[in-house]
């Protein structure tokens, strides 16, 4: 019996201005193989299925256990993490492409720094007085921790932004991940001191009003964040804030 192999088709692009080409690879199958191990195999033996020499594929990765958020890409048309994409669960040939909503760097690598800029804009932090010893933190009940913890599991993979029809240059929408972080910090006893500023940051163009409730975000999120709940809650808070600001003149 011939050894089992796995077929891949990978979209390659040498630089942002270079033309995109598809390359096919036929790799030895191994039990438990994921898309990342296929990339590693190609790096050790950079030859296409038709025997042509090529270069190792450029892609982002780090932890390989779906917690660092690096290796998001489109696999068989779906935005997901390459590390947790097991070959045995995928239809072949496995088609791998970069995310489409972010500036392409090379091959499967894109520039997702927009998310980190968004987090700056909404002040996604607790403004502590300092790191010197000021005693215990605020008391918090398990029920409160259980609201915050799932939101704090966001790995910044940007899959929710990739699949959002409203996340594009025309709207400038911040996307679901950032909104969820606003809820996370507004729920914290001392984080909420910046609540009004965060809500105002989400009230203009590109803010929460751009959301079209397609709900793709919550479906694609690899960490099952309650994204649509966060969007509903923050929408309400933004409206209340607008009303308050209006009355205050």
């Amino acid at each position: 019996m011939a050894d089992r192999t796995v077929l891949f088709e990978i979209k390659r692009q040498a630089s942002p201005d270079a033309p995109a080409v598809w390359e096919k690879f036929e790799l030895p199958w191994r039990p438990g193989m994921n898309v990342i191990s296929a990339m590693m195999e190609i790096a050790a033996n950079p030859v296409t299925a038709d025997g042509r020499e090529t270069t190792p594929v450029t892609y982002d990765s780090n932890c390989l256990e779906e917690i660092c958020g690096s290796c998001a890409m489109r696999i068989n048309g779906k935005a997901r993490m390459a590390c947790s994409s097991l070959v045995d669960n995928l239809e072949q040939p496995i088609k791998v492409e970069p995310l489409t909503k972010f500036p392409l760097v090379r091959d499967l690598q894109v520039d997702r720094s927009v998310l980190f800029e968004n987090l700056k804009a909404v002040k996604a932090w607790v403004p502590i007085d300092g790191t010197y010893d000021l005693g215990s933190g605020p008391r918090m009940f398990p029920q409160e921790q259980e609201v915050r913890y799932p939101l704090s599991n966001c790995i910044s993979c940007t899959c929710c932004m990739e699949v959002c029809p409203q996340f594009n240059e025309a709207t400038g929408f911040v996307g679901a991940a950032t909104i969820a972080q606003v809820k996370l910090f507004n729920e914290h006893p001392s984080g909420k001191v910046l609540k009004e500023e965060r809500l105002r940051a989400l009230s203009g163009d590109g803010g929460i009003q751009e959301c079209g409730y397609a709900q793709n975000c919550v479906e694609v999120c690899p960490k099952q964040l309650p994204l649509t709940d966060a969007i509903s809650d923050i929408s309400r808070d933004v409206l209340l804030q607008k009303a308050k600001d209006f009355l205050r003149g």
Partner: protein
Amino acid sequence: MAAPKIIVIGGGLAGLSAVIKIAEAGGNVDLFSIVPVKRSHSVCAQGGINAAKNLKGEGDTTWQHFDDTIYGGDFLANQTPVKGMCEAAPGIIDLLDRMGVPFNRTPEGLLDFRRFGGTLYHRTAFAGATTGQQLLYALDEQVRRHEAEGKVTKYEGWEFLSAVLDSKGVARGITAMNLRTMELRSFPADAIILATGGVGALFGKSTNSVVCTGSAQSAIFQQGAYYANGEFIQVHPTSIPGEDKLRLMSESARGEGGRVWVPRNPGDKRPVKQIPAAERFYFLEEWYPKYGNLVPRDVATRAIHKVVYELGLGIDGQPMVYLDLTHIDRATLDHKLGGILEIYEKFVGVDPHDEPMKIFPGMHYTMGGLWVDFDQMTNIPGIFAAGECEYQYHGANRLGANSLVSCIYGGFQAGPNALRYAKNLTAAEGDGGHAAELARQTEINNRLVRNDGNENPFRLWRELGQTMTEHATVTRYNKGLKVADQKIVELLDRYNKVNLSDRSQWANTSFAFARQLKNMLELSRTVVLGALQRDESRGAHYKPDFPERNDERFLKTSKASYTGSPEGPRIDYEDVDIQHIKPRPRRYDAAK
């Protein structure tokens, strides 16, 4: 006078901790990281962070934490810095709590604590089973705040290549390479802090992230920094073997009551859940009745190897044992361990609520690292180190949940110390060595790109990983260590014939990897030769031919220095600070 400029390399817990302290004190920081700092390897830590807060009425004290840490490390750690860390730990937990880390809570709204290995106290604060992620994010958020206020400049996507040293050997900056444009540049600084993490890649597959190559440590080791206790490598007892890496299965699974066992009958063909309790061999509980499944990692790992390789009791004859949580109710598991159970189910396809997990030891952590003094400074003036990349806090074996606290504490020490050092630094002569170092690095790059050999760097790396895993992990023999060193020397020679299949100057990952590989090879020799020369067994370093700890000869820190000669690094020995706790035999079959 302008505020001193500090460069921090690495944006995990240690690096970010240093950055925050420097920014808070009015210093000026440039933060370099290969990956966006929020994606650093600290994110992988799962189980928790230790501090003797004594919130469970057990009478825990920072002294107990100190004693457990020293004892767990088999007395190899210098005691004064470890004492400082354990005393600072409760305050660090409070600070993290104030930063908004969603730690698990008791019904009264206080921090909850769980058990961990190597202690009999509930001393480990946790946020589900993703504590590292939650801690990293909290520090990342504080750094983002300082960045927004203009106190921190991030250089993400830049890889550190070397330190810039002046004619007197004093650090004056760094050289780094932009991983997108491949631009090579030197950056001036009055002090630099390495917080560049672990060395998992020396072993091919490990629980570490892709960036944990030890390349930065190795680079400055080759520039004259000592590398200490490199032979002490922690192999975590419970990992999930994979094609691309070994995924960690947290010690917290045992902290919450998980039990390790194998069928007593090696040929048992019954479905796992039909094997009755009497026919299960709970070997850790039998062999170590006091600590049970929560013996320190080196002890648990050797026990699993013994069961598999000496007793032939691995599941289905494979190198695997069960880690069983199925007796614990689903709600408790989801609340306290959700994150790691999800990882197991995603990658193995089996639900650990219903069926015991199959696990095996995997390379996890380096206790050794850059030698530093009690101020976290290496022997090169102006170069500091903090976190896993230095050697100071864990001796011969690290206790679970001590790494997060050592990273943060180390960063909190290194930051202010570097700033103090920088304020007293006199100006460099000339350009401080920048032009010369940049030229040296440019030449290395040019040679690599032009090289016309026939060796693929990724394949050389696989061979390195295989030899290191075979000879330099759980059980070590001098014969095998010599074989490993010869193999590394061979790989170093073949490295000269590396051919980059990609010669482009844009986001060229092979190029960056080839540069790391050279450093990995050089650093591997310190691990192997350090192990070869240490003829005793201590903590994670185990030689069946020398089964006892030998304090007379080896209660010493090993210090490797680079020689550039074919014989490899020179290893010297330095006395250990034992002024607080007198060394005593380390055993876990009874209370200590």
